[in-house]
């Protein structure tokens, strides 16, 4: 059992949880994730580790409610326990001194990108962060992202905070209007956002990596449920990823596989909300 040391409700649908997991806290590197299972009948789901405190022995995750399992996590309180947490999983982000690095976060992806931004800054890069969400209430990790970047651009679809528009528009402005030389882009967030970023940077030939969010079960490379095609080859997101060269990812296949359980997910979520 993994105790929740502190749970903060950032928004009705966004929870920040600090969980007691000393072994994971000690080992974890930026970009890695955990697989968690809330209770005995629960699913195993992957969640990126946003932060960790090795001394305290805790890890921090941000969860956005989009279905039953994330709703279950969202409903937990400080002092509750999560049945199972496995990690740290996946390959850590490959941190290098590229020069000017743009970190793009969408929704809770911003929180997940925090440790990565921090590492890139520590490695001597000039870090520009672009973070976006549908509305101001769904923005997370702004304070920390400001700390871990040299420049922070905030976007909201509805203009309730920062610039009105998508993160891709802010990226385009940086490159085409301000003529900033960008050496590397990393995007973490909803799949359509990461796809749009990739499509934008491809003609610019800027190295771009994204953190994929496939459906997973074990998270250790034994089932192939999370398989994607990258550069024409089959890769498992859980052990070969979660980050990949965006320009090589078959987005159509990824989006196709994300839809496999749509009807069961809907059924589960609706039952949960009624109960």
């Amino acid at each position, binding site marked *: 059992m993994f105790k929740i040391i502190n749970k903060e409700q950032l928004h009705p649908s966004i929870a920040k949880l600090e969980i007691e997991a000393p072994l994971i806290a000690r080992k974890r590197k930026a970009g890695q994730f955990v697989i968690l299972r809330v209770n005995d*009948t629960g699913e195993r789901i992957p969640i990126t580790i946003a932060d960790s405190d090795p001394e305290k022995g805790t890890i921090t995750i941000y969860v956005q409610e989009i279905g039953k399992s994330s709703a279950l996590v969202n409903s937990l309180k400080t002092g509750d326990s999560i049945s199972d947490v496995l990690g740290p999983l996946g390959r850590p982000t490959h941190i290098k001194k590229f020069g000017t690095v743009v970190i793009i976060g969408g929704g809770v992806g911003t929180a997940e990108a925090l440790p990565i931004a921090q590492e890139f800054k520590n490695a001597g890069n000039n870090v520009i962060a672009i973070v976006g969400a549908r509305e101001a209430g769904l923005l997370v990790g702004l304070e920390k992202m400001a700390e871990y970047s040299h420049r922070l651009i905030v976007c909201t679809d509805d203009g309730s905070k920062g610039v009105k528009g998508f993160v891709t528009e802010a990226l385009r402005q940086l490159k085409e209007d301000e003529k900033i030389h960008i050496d590397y882009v990393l995007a973490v967030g909803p799949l359509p956002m990461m796809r749009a970023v990739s499509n934008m940077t491809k003609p610019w030939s800027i190295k771009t990596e994204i953190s994929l969010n496939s459906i997973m079960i074990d998270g250790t490379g034994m089932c192939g449920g999370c398989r994607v095609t990258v550069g024409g080859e089959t890769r498992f997101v859980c052990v070969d990823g979660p980050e990949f060269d965006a320009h090589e990812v078959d987005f159509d296949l990824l989006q196709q596989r994300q839809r496999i359980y749509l009807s*069961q997910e809907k059924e589960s979520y609706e039952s949960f909300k009624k109960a």
Partner: protein
Amino acid sequence: MTEGTKKEKTPRQKIPEQNPAIRSKNFNEVNLGYTEEMALLEAKRCIQCKNPRCVKGCPVEIDIPAFIKKICEHDYIGSVLKIKEANGLPAVCGRVCPQEDQCEKECILGIKDKPVAIGNLERFVADYEREKDLVKKPAVPKQTGKAVAVVGAGPAGLTCAGDLAKMGHKVTIFEALHISGGVLVYGIPEFRLPKAILQKEVDFVSSLGVEIKNNSLVGKTMTINEMLDGEFDAVFIANGAGLPMFMNIPGENLNGIYSSNEYLTRSNLMKAYAFPKYDTPIIKGNSVAVVGGGNTAMDSVRTAKRLGAERAMIIYRRSPEEMPARIEEIHHAEEEGIEFHLLTNPIEYFGDDKGWVKKVRCIKMELGEPDDSGRRRPIPKEGSEFEMDVDVVVVAIGTKANPLLSQTTPELPINKWGYIVADEQTGKTTMEGVWAGGDIVTGGATVILAMGAGKRAARSINEYLQTK
């Protein structure tokens, strides 16, 4: 001997089982087990050979005639204790061992008649002990002060851990999944090996003083070197051959196409067959094709039937004689209405515009000369292509070594296929303090072979610890 009367030969007792039409709609255990009467009748068939061939056929050399004799004496507990001297998981082995290739194959009665049903008898006494709640925890031996880490709570790991604990060592098993058992829990379905029974076997190992730490992925959560530098004097690696194999034919990434590992893990480990009571979903196809001919393929296709498939089919490239699955599983599958498309191989999958698999294109095969496995090589028959409608496909063609552990432990000696290189007799590797056994050494094999490796490694580790 009474003159003029020939002793009536008792036929081999058939184990009662659920009716196929009923059992193909539920996940309850197919075999119902012998009654005491049947067990006694069957045990009395054994002629107590002076030089028992059956013992040599058993990978862990259970003293078979001895345990059967105790059944005849109505000493069922004595019988299971006799088995447990060599095999710590009799309730499991009695259910899943391919006895027809092992002990029963050697049984002398099999020459003119049917062999003694050794597996059914092993199951009977194991179940008797458990159901009557007569499982006794052995006395705690004197502690040696030495600590051993075991990687993986599957058959090899559980066996090695149990044996080492009985020798007085402090053993900790590190298991990645949230429930212990390895293939026993994620691979073998409920209808062949009830999980409640498996859990009792795992609990017994714990009761010997073994600590099992779930949610521990060695290579990520902790490393082998940390274990050896820290509190452990030796490590036994038994993490299995868990990498799924795909055929890499066109269309294999369409929705509805699963590796058998994923399909069975969803159904067995995560209980997706009970969705939505359990949250993990599984696609319940109407026309399901399973590619392969081993136990995993049988498990997958019979699971599909139970999930409601009108057509549950096996597609296998060789002939019935080459199928590696346990005879009883093939037999049960046939009774349950599984369709067998043998000497057939898939070559391509087609889907609809939403990415769901709809058809499989197959080709007929014929058998040529034997290949490396000793079995006749299947050769495609040109011009014999045909198509079948499918909405779910399960690829059950075998598994390979998962590279996760070896990638994070460079000193671990592995061969070109990624399996760990270990001494056949002792399980020792060239890495100081490290032993390995089970599927991670041999590739996908059987539960009993893994257990045998666990036993041999425990003996070798024990010897090594005495020199430290």
